[in-house]
């Protein structure tokens, strides 16, 4: 019986430590840095996914229903990432500075993804080409952010 209680106590302790770590991870500069990195990764994924989709669409490789849904999934992922950054605590000047670097990149990313999504929906290849170059530039900006913040 005591052995069982010890095991159960150990399991509860592991979970409690984990939950504490999760709950406190955003309340310091380093916690915010982790959040910002995660958000930047998600945004980078969304931007480059739409970039890959745009190229495939230019080649006529995508079904309309699939294209619309996949672009929508990426756009939703990006919006969720932007919302997560907005709602994260910024406890110190380091966090504020990181936020000020990442926030404009996210705004540009949301606009570029929106443009590409509407260009694909209307099959406007001219607008799609323009949106793609914005996607590339934003993707590179986000990749630089990830590299320099890691």
């Amino acid at each position, binding site marked *: 019986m005591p052995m069982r209680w010890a095991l159960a106590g150990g399991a509860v302790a592991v979970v409690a430590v*984990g939950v504490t770590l999760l709950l406190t991870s955003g309340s310091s500069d380093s916690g915010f840095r982790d959040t910002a990195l*995660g958000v930047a990764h998600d945004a980078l*994924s969304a931007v480059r996914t739409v970039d890959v989709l745009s190229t495939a669409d230019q080649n006529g490789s*995508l079904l309309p*229903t*699939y294209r619309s*849904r*996949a672009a929508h999934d990426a756009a939703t*992922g990006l919006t969720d990432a932007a919302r997560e950054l907005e709602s994260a605590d910024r406890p110190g000047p380091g966090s504020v500075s990181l936020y000020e670097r990442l926030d404009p990149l996210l705004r540009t990313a949301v606009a570029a993804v929106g443009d590409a999504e509407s260009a694909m929906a209307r099959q406007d290849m001219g607008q799609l080409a323009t949106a793609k170059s914005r996607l590339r530039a934003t993707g590179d900006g986000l990749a630089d952010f990830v590299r320099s913040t890691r």
Partner: protein
Amino acid sequence: VKRALAVTLGILTAIGGFVDIGDLVANGESGARFGLRLSWVVVVGVIGICVYAEMAGRVAAVSKRPVFDLVRERLGPRVALANLAGSYLVTLLTLSAEIGGVALAVELLTDLPYLLWVVPAGVVMWLVLWRVRFETMERVFGLAGLALVVFLIALFALHPSWSHLADEAGSLPADENWGTYGFFAVSLFAAALTPYEVFFFSSGGVEEGWTRRDLVTSRANVFIGFPLGGILSLAIMGCAAVVFEPAGIRVDDLSQVAIPVGQALGQIGLVVVVVGFFAATFGAALETGLSAGYTVAQYFGWAWGKLVRPRAAARFHTVVLVSVLVGTVLLLTTIDPVELTEYSLVFSAVALPLTYLPILVVANDREYLGDAVNGRLTNILGVTYLVIILLVAVAAIPLMIITGMGQS
């Protein structure tokens, strides 16, 4: 000729039925994050499922009773209850994730939100479970799941640099850490050894009336069908490795998993891959739905199975219906099906010892198997895998917490 045809059909069904939502998600995600660096885990997992599915099939064919019918008798009601609780809950989570996968596949073909498809998917699934013969159900969805071979074709059509992929094997990507590597290794291992697979395999063997003569069919399914199914898993990982890893894209949606196929093979490839998603997830949803009923009915000693008239196995069918209902309602809470899949893999990993230890015990019992008990090699492999399974089970939750579900 008839026998050879049956064996071939069984193998094809095993290949097509091998991949489910867990494999699609885990292989897509890990390929995008780690390239082919975790491909060894798929190989280890496939060997593990072969070892244990062979034991489960042998127990069913020789004793004419499914493994879990014997667990309570052999290990007593308390141990069997722990086994039942862990296995049933994990199977229920997996069932819900599979129904979510079906809804996501239909979403990709219709562009209507997946939530609209959750209830129809649950209803159609239950009707199929209620009305369609076991063998027809297994064959149709297993064979349709072969559509996922398109990943293998796409991988070659993408002309990857094989030498580059191989060179990476010994190193971590610059922006990843060992914790995340471990988390995805656990997910891939759990995806290959999902508990419902052995429930379904052994109970299915009894449903199909296997005898000692069917051991050849059973072993061909396991030793040829499962490894070839594992190759499909590796192809999914490979496609993600070629298209997503160099671009720094992480896979969070089922729609992304199909992109490399569209890129390589165009619209026809996309249609085939989405049909493959549908078949794989629908087939797995049927298997998990039945497995939920099998585990509960076999523990309590109720009449069970598709071959028994529903009126004679009312409690079995009620458990199946309630499980499908709970799985459907869980998705209606708007939980993301991909996240649900990730959780189901982690909790599967935790529950693995509860499923696999009893198989090893029963497969060594001469009272049930006579001279068909495990040989020395099978026992060495079985014990080795049990140690791996225990390590994976212990590591799963800490890795989930430390890496924030692999997000760090």
